[in-house]
């Protein structure tokens, strides 16, 4: 079954084309790294899947449902690139509300909140207001709310942004743990080494189009690192690499 699907999707912001006829299908249980230079369309792709923006043309589905259907976001966790929360709420209040919105209540909610606070190292800061937290702590709060209820699908937009080395390691552990549990991950990132460690498939976007996609082993040439492959593909232009000529965007992460 397909978790995330973009079918011939284009997205225009005014006259600028953020995505251009992108086909992408992410099967359930895969961990896909979404790569590309700034402005390549990575965040736009995630926002389309969440229903934050509408496609100019084409179709978007999350587990077979359009993003306009709230049920498409059941069992979905999201870490935004720049987490923004109601600043006057405490971390605990924030998690309580998010937990309530995904169906937890009573003791189950308290239990789940405590577990996520411990997991993300926020237990001792649970009563602090979100507005006073550093960027790194905000990112931890973003992970804590995204991991509530052990969601089947995780959309992570620059998940290690603003984290210190220990935070990066923790984030990697959370992502790997989710992957080991068979969760579907779509991770947009500039940190290629992290993507290489946490994902088994990659999609490289360039100027709104898919330049390459597929299992890591197929996208990388023998002995090549992901960074080398990325530079080769992006500098070479979409479809310029013989390695990628055979990769159908619609097969992409499949």
């Amino acid at each position, binding site marked *: 079954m397909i978790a995330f699907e973009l079918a011939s999707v284009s997205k225009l*912001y005014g006259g600028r084309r953020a995505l251009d006829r992108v086909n992408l299908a992410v099967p359930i249980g895969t961990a896909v790294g979404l790569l590309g230079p700034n402005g390549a369309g990575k965040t736009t792709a995630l*926002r389309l899947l*969440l*229903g*934050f*923006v*509408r496609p100019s043309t084409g179709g978007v589905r999350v587990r077979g449902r359009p993003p306009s259907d*709230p*049920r*498409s*976001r*059941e069992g*979905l966790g*999201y870490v*935004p690139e*720049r*987490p*923004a*929360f*109601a*600043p*006057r*709420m405490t971390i605990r209040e924030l998690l309580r*509300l*998010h937990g*309530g*919105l*995904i*169906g*937890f*209540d009573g*003791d*189950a909610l308290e*239990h*789940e909140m405590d*577990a996520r606070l411990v*997991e993300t190292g926020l237990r001792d800061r649970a009563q602090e207001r979100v507005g006073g937290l550093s960027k790194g702590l905000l990112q931890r709060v*973003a992970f804590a*709310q995204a*991991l509530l*209820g*052990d969601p089947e699908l995780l*959309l992570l937009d620059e998940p290690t942004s603003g984290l210190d080395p220990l935070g990066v390691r923790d984030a990697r552990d959370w992502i790997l*743990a989710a992957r080991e*549990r068979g969760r579907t991950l779509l991770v947009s990132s500039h940190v290629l080494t992290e993507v290489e460690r946490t994902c088994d498939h990659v999609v490289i976007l360039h100027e709104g189009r898919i330049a390459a996609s597929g299992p890591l082993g197929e996208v990388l040439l023998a002995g090549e690192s992901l960074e080398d492959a990325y530079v080769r593909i992006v500098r070479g232009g979409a479809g310029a690499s013989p390695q990628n000529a055979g990769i159908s965007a619609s097969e992409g992460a499949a």
Partner: protein
Amino acid sequence: MSETAPAKRGIRPIRAFHLLAAEAFQDSLRSRLGLAVAGCALLALVFVDRCTSLEGSFVLNGEVVDPGMSARAMGPILFGWVSLFLLAASGLVASDGLARPVADGSIALWLARPVSRTVYTLARLSGTLALAISAGGGALVAAAFLLHARRGFALEPALFAGLVYAASAAIVSALAMTLSLYAPRVVTLFVVILWILLVVVANVAHLFGASFSGWFAALERWGPPLGTALLYAMSGWVSLPLDAHDVALVMLRLVAWMGLSAALLVLSVRRLELR
């Protein structure tokens, strides 16, 4: 993690609405605008307290106004002014209630949950409206009791006027929220206050026999009858002869505007792109 994850129940729209509306209420309460609305309510109450304590006669154009007439007019004038002042305050709190989460981006994480934009929007509206009505309603209840205790005004018209205030606050809040998605807060507030004044002037002038043409006539005829409904509600204080059919139509128009303004707000949010 998964081995300790406890069972959860499915989320229902009504439960999501309750949770988000409570959050919106607390969010407004904690904001500076919440304090401002409470201040407005207190100011209105002090105004009523001072006015109902006044003794002596009124002089208009050099002539002493009939004491009986000025005493009868005090209730509707005071209550009407206070209601309109509090309506503007509800516009103030609403101008921030949705625009802020959109501007700071916090709306994104709520909408990443299985919550429809309709539920989220109506919850934000209800939460901010609850704050405005709590503060405004409290001030109006106190004003009604002051008028009753000190000047002998009946409580029933104040109750009807309070209900009209609540309905009008819903309209003003929804329209202010809608406008706040497209305009800065200061502009929103200015437009809302100007619009309330225009509507009320048109309504009151029409009741006293004035006739208009053009957009002003359309505003009076088809706009939300904020002034007309308020005066009709307080008619028991001034023995205003009313046609029951006319009253029913005005109240129906008020209710229709409640639905229309909320629908306009929901439609605007549904069309909003969160970039």
